[in-house]
């Protein structure tokens, strides 16, 4: 598959997606988003790939939606074309996505970042939802995911003022897992991705699913969901191998079965 707006590397067990519109700070148009979704779906189907890294460049993960594309839109256009449905496909990716994020991460870029499962940020990253400055509001999950992540009050301030926050603030508020020097964020993300790639793939997948479920369910339902996934793992070869290796004091050989 060839892409125009992203660079895709297959480096088993990792898949790597670079947003690649550097001249416009990786502004998110629908083509770029479609390519990201398709690349993630392709990695999801590829047995060699266990974890995907989603990254931009040092200056920008993505500075937000491509305004040009939206400036003439009417509600009817938006409903009929339903391009935002791409975001729903993003939500269904089963394998873990690690965000390696630096520079401007704004608007749709911030929303895309929040679709990652783990975020390693560079010290120069800046996160914001500046939509309010141009008379609109976040439309791809920003009001929901930011609020669930950093809490109502901080989310409200960011969304109503449009003021971005630094990587260190984002770290303090739990929007990113950790902050490392700009020269190191990609390597750090890779290290983490490789660590996760060593785990039993089905367990990783079901665990991710269960964690994400917590956003959609009341606790009781979430606990039932967790238990079902937990029980399910006892049907896997990897579970037998994992427990056997543990008692034999050797590293497990997981096969994804």
């Amino acid at each position, binding site marked *: 598959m060839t892409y125009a707006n992203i660079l895709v590397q297959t480096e088993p067990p990792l898949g790597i997606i670079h947003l690649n519109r550097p001249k416009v700070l990786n502004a998110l148009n629908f083509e770029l988003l479609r390519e990201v979704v398709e690349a993630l779906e392709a990695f999801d189907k590829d047995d060699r790939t266990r974890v995907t890294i989603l990254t931009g460049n040092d200056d920008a993960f993505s500075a937000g939606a491509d305004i040009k594309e939206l400036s003439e839109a009417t509600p009817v256009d938006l409903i009929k074309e339903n391009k935002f449905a791409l975001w729903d496909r993003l939500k269904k990716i089963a394998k873990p996505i690690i965000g390696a994020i630096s520079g401007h991460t704004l608007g749709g870029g911030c929303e895309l970042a929040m679709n990652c499962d783990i975020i390693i940020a560079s010290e120069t990253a800046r996160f914001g939802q500046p939509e309010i400055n141009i008379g609109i509001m976040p439309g791809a999950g920003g009001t929901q995911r930011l609020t669930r992540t950093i809490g109502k009050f901080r989310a409200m301030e960011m969304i109503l003022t449009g003021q971005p926050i630094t990587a260190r603030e984002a770290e303090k508020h739990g929007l990113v897992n950790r902050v490392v*020097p700009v*020269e*190191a964020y990609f390597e*750090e993300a890779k290290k983490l991705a490789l660590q996760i790639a060593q785990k039993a793939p089905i367990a990783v997948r079901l665990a991710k699913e269960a964690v994400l479920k917590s956003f959609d369910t009341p606790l009781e339902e979430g606990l039932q969901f967790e238990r079902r996934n937990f029980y399910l793992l006892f049907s896997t070869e990897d579970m037998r191998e994992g427990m056997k290796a543990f008692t034999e004091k050797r590293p497990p050989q997981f096969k994804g079965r």
Partner: protein
Amino acid sequence: MGYETIIVEKKNQIARITLNRPQALNALNETMGEELKAALKEAERDPETRCLIITGAGRAFSAGEDVSGLKERYAGGAHPSLGDHLRKKYHPIILGIRNMEKPIIARINGIAAGSGASIALACDIRIASEEAGLKQAFIGVGLVPDSGSSYFLTRTLGPGRALELIMTGRTVGAKEAETLGLVNKTVPTAELDKTVDEMAEKLANGPTKALGLSKRVVNQAARLELSDALEYEAQNQEIAGRTKDHLEAVRAFLEKRQPKFSGN
């Protein structure tokens, strides 16, 4: 780029920024604030610049905020927003100096007062002439230390001595400043240039990336716990370990010669 209130000279990978309103003891008017900001940004971006010197023309380093604009600002008993003024004018300068990953020397040729002292204190290394002095001039006009002065003084001197200087507003002579550790070295006026230039040359020919990373870890050390500081050092050492200059230094050591650093 042409400037009106500062002079920027580049030679041997050293950029020298001279605050140049000697008739006003290099007080920072709005133009100088903007120009200093721009010059710092330019130096940061310029790969040919591997060391900076900040100094003043004439007999002062800088008298700080330019008070000649007071008349208009306070006309009719108005209270101008000093907080916003600082955020807009001084914070980018102070952060520009602290965050630039290149060595910056303050060549303190004369009095550094108020925000002028803050600028000197924000630099990485301070070399003063015997005629120089540092003055926390803020209390004299009924204000608190700003543009980083309280931060730098407290970290250098501890709260007791910092407060003495802040509350009395007295001028600390260059000799005393050296004893207190507020300046790295005080030298006779005739030797100021030689001392500064030697230091600048050494730094400009140093492993620039590692110098910048050193500044980065020291900046962070002030806010980190030991375990986090250790981790932060390790992350930056990983980066320094991948520079060409590190390999060059190791090679030079094994070959028993002086390393030649490229800054990469």
